[in-house]
């Protein structure tokens, strides 16, 4: 599994440098960083993995796309293929969910003892809760800012 993730990440890295169009190159880069984040999570470095995903796919890539939009790059037009999008979405969501379910798998069919419940929560879910609250706060701030701009115009 780890070899597969790393191999795909390296292929995506090469693709992001060899693509001629800017936007597919950025998307390859995003996927590479996302896979590396998933790999850190499976390696039990959960905080580092979440940092990787939030900082690279959330921060740097959005910044890059913003830059690309400012300089006026043309976004390629793709054919609409709903089934392909559905399959890709399911695969990506599955990849996100697997590391979340890994701590619970040893207890399958058994009740989780309270002590272990606390351990699982403090190991992983508390960190996710903190990050999700940061993300939610950013989204809230962005929404309020956007509403303010729409109401009062650009200052």
């Amino acid at each position, binding site marked *: 599994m780890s070899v597969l993730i790393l191999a795909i990440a390296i292929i995506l890295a090469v693709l992001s440098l060899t693509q001629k169009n800017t936007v597919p190159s950025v998307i390859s880069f995003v996927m590479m960083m996302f896979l*590396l984040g998933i790999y850190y999570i499976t390696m039990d470095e959960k905080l580092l993995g979440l940092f990787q995903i939030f900082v690279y796919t959330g921060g740097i890539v959005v910044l890059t796309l913003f830059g690309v939009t400012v*300089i006026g790059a043309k976004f390629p037009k793709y054919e609409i293929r709903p089934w392909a999008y559905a399959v890709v979405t399911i695969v990506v969501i599955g990849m996100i969910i697997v590391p979340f379910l890994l701590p619970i798998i040893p207890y399958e069919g058994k009740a989780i003892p309270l002590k272990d419940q606390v351990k699982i929560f403090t190991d992983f879910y508390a960190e996710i809760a903190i990050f999700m609250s940061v993300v939610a706060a950013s989204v809230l701030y962005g929404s309020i800012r956007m509403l303010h701009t729409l109401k009062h115009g650009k200052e």
Partner: protein
Amino acid sequence: MVHFYIDAIAAIILFAVGLYGVTSKSDFLKILFSLEMLLNAVILLLASAAFNFGFTHGLAIAYVIIVIATLEAAAGVLIFILAYRITGKIIPDNLNKAVDDE
């Protein structure tokens, strides 16, 4: 231990790809991506060392590297937007000459 070797090989390949991009690409954006790849190869190696040998100090260095990478990306995007405004291209070659002509 085998796990560490796999990670180390992957990190070396990623570093090589990044180095190739930095030295041979002429597009600002791809140079920026290559720099990020170089930093990520180092982070991968540090995370693997922390996982396999308990080298947890490496994780602290990895977090610092991520912060530096963010700042570097912000500065890089700013530079390539300014370069585009001045020269009309996102190619860093002869940028100083274009600025002098301006």
